[in-house]
């Protein structure tokens, strides 16, 4: 279509002009307002933080090879797991899919030239970098040993580490999330191309819409909470420390009011990625489009009223605990609906085994285990046994690494041809996906058993009977590390040497595949008009697949315009 010559011959060429070669020089990147270039700035910076967090994780796993701890002092160990959590959660997971893939794709997917506020988009990145610098400063000048949860009064009074710069960094970084969320919401509301009704939106956009709601409603709360903890630390204001008349439980309520919804900030975009990958690689419409879209919103809404399930053993009122347990079980339903619909989409499909599909199916398996083990922790009677053990660690990593990171890496592979215009080596990529899947399970499955046995989290040493399972976990982690290094290498390699992809290599049905790869700075030569239903392969003769009928037999467009 736009600017893409028909490639009947099979060999593709990069378009003459695209967003990567439109301008040159460092200034053209640091002062860009192109959402695609900003996405790449984010790609570089979240990869950096992923690497930092990954090094901490590696050291943690090596240290835990022996019951008495192999590598570092207790103090250093505590800093390692804290900094691992802070780097990964606030500076990798939360921005990863929204700020990289969402930034790059949302405007193209809805047929817009850019986000609604391009300069604010760039500002978001600078805020992220400033926040990140504060946190790195904290890591380099004494480190941080409070746990990523910053529980008071440990963080506000007793810790001797560099808490204040870290808290300031996370406070600042929050504004980056808020502005990104705001930008997405306004863009989706106001900049959809003609014919792009709400119910023709790709599910990736729906899930980012839900994520953005959480970002703008939840992030201010964490920012204020950490600010209060910082004020207590710096000026001894009595918010949380009982010695000053405060209450440490108040901090936990405020903290989890954001930080529980924040796990949905991390997982919802990955669900959006999977909802794009699966229809493409089975070449049929996604099963239950409106149920998947509605479940994203359902998760975002119910996710806000489950926070105190992190506090079942703080001595909170029994009635409150019962209410929060009930609500936590409710939020399981929209997640289950998604899994059932993805699985059903495979039925009678034309399933291809390409790399993004392997990640998507890996995601379904791992997210299912992560989600199901959440049922243990939502259960009041079991939580009194499993709370604060390795069971929680395993559950959390199944959702966050098995879910969110698998979704992110799968999404990178899926859209890599669009982002760079080139393909990666397919068989190497499939091998990496399988290595990741195996390494991941070997790392984290033993931790469920450790948790059931009662091994508490955040322990730099442990009773000897837990050693075998810990060694298994460390062995898995080394496989996992290989699984992450491989894509870093071959994706980087492919940027220069990969095969030219063409505009729609899979092919897929979304608007982003109707423009060149890489796209123009303005995304489209002329504003596209959407006259097909999402994930419809039948009425799309332009995809060059068999069994296609002429367009025009449109199902009645549902939703408003």
């Amino acid at each position, binding site marked *: 279509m736009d600017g893409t010559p028909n490639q009947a011959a099979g060999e593709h060429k990069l378009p003459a002009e695209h967003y990567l070669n439109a301008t040159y020089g460092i200034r053209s990147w640091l002062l860009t307002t192109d959402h695609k270039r900003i996405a790449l700035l984010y790609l570089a910076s979240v990869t950096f933080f992923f690497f930092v967090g990954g090094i901490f994780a590696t050291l943690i796993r090596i240290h835990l090879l022996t019951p008495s701890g192999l590598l570092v002092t*207790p103090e250093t160990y505590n800093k390692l797991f804290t900094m691992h959590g802070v780097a990964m959660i606030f500076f990798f997971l939360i921005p990863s899919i929204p700020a990289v893939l969402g930034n790059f794709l949302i405007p193209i997917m809805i047929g817009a030239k850019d986000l609604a506020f391009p300069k604010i988009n760039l500002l978001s990145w600078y805020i992220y970098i400033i926040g990140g610098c504060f946190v790195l400063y904290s890591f380099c000048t004494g480190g941080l040993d409070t746990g990523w949860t910053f529980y008071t009064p440990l963080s506000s009074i007793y810790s001797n580490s560099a808490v204040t710069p870290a808290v300031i960094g996370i406070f600042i970084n929050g504004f980056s999330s808020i502005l990104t969320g705001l930008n997405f919401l306004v863009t989706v509301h106001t900049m959809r191309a003609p014919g792009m009704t709400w119910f023709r939106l790709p599910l990736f956009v729906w899930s980012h819409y839900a994520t953005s709601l959480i970002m703008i409603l939840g992030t201010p709360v964490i920012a204020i909470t950490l600010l209060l903890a910082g004020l207590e630390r710096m000026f001894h204001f009595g918010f949380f420390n009982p010695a000053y008349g405060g209450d440490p439980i108040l901090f936990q309520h405020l903290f989890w009011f954001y930080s529980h919804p924040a796990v949905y900030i991390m997982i919802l975009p990955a669900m959006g990625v999977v909802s794009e990958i699966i229809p493409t690689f089975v070449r049929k419409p996604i099963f239950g489009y409106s149920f998947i879209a509605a479940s994203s919103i359902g998760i975002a809404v119910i996710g806000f009223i489950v926070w105190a399930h992190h506090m079942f053993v703080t001595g909170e009122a029994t009635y409150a605990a019962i209410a929060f347990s009930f609500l936590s079980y409710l939020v399981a339903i929209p997640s289950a609906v998604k899994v059932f619909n993805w699985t059903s989409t495979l039925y009678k499909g*034309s399933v291809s085994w390409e790399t993004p599909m392997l990640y998507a199916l890996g995601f379904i398996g791992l997210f299912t285990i992560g989600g199901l083990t959440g049922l243990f922790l939502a259960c009041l*009677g079991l939580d009194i046994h499993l709370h604060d053990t390795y069971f929680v660690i395993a559950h959390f990593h199944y959702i966050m690494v098995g879910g969110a990171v698998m979704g992110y890496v799968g999404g990178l592979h899926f859209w890599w041809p669009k982002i760079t215009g080139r393909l990666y080596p397919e068989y190497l990529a499939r091998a990496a996906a399988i290595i990741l899947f195996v390494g991941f399970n070997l790392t984290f499955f033993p931790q469920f058993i450790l948790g*059931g*046995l009662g091994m508490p989290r955040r322990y730099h*040493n442990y009773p000897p009977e837990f050693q075998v399972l810990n060694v298994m976990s460390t062995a898995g982690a080394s496989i996992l590390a290989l699984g992450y290094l491989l894509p870093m290498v071959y994706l980087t390699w492919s940027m220069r040497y990969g095969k030219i992809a063409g505009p729609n290599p899979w092919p897929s049905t979304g608007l982003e595949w109707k423009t060149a790869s890489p796209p123009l700075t303005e995304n489209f030569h002329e504003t596209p008009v959407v006259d097909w239903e999402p994930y419809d392969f039948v009425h799309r003769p332009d995809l060059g697949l068999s069994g296609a009928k002429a367009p025009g037999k449109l199902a009645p467009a549902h939703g408003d315009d």
Partner: protein
Amino acid sequence: MQSQLPLYPESASNFAPDVDGLMLFIVSVCIFFAVAITIAVIYFFFRYKRKAPDEIGAPIHGDLRLEITWIVLPFFLLMAMFGWGAVIYVDYRHTPSDTLDVYVIGKQWMWKLEQPNGRREINELHVPVNRNVRLILASEDVIHDFSVPAFRVKMDVIPGHYNNMWFRPTKAGRYHFFCSQYCGTSHAIMGGWVIVMEQDEYAAWLAGASNSGDPVEVGAKLYNDLACSTCHEPNGKGRGPSYNGVYGSKVKLADGSTVTADDAYIRESILQPNAKIVAGYQPVMPSFQGLVSEDQILALTAYIKAQKDQPVPGKPAAGEPATGKK
């Protein structure tokens, strides 16, 4: 006692069979769904493998009956898990009245425990088998958590709060306890052993050498040293209420409400005396926040507890006794 690769902890309290039964139920449901989904994914993956490069899948958009089924059916299963879990939790949070009370103080990075007769322990807890035991938990600094995996219970230990936990050990033996709420540098070594003894052994152990004074005596000394005695005269004529008969009674407050004089009330009255003013007295007591340690509060509580059978001064037997604060 321990295999190289244990898969499930020992079961040694009244809660363990309940929790394990529930665990088995949830594990079964989860394995069923995980296996069903995995088999479906793998089966579809091979069964519908693309045969021709330009092939497309069947244009199926969804099925309302299926959607309703997989919303409603899981809902009932989830509610079963929720209900069963809530029953165990309510039982756990409702301490029976016939408990043996042990006071537990967490501080960076050790546990100080005190038996009912004042015998002190560090990082060890001796309890008799088949007896309901209540732990009354207090922290001197940050949040800790007292966790006994073999009993399947834990509870946070929070500064400024008293938390309770209870269990009934069912099997003699030695079991790990851990601090399971991260509390700083040496969090991982802040643990110890729960030693469950036969009842007669426990009685003999308890009667053995006590390494500190009887808490009532310590409390009596503090009562004089901290000058509590100048206001809280036993005869009820001081500026503060007498301790006689206070513990466990209903205390009438200046605002007309009543409160039960339990451990938490006494603690609060020492640290924030003006939070609850006993009817008929002025709010003149200074706060002892920062002046008394958690140990000393426990000793004072023990002393006040010991006065509960002393004659209540002044008022005749009719009506509410003039009881109240320290």
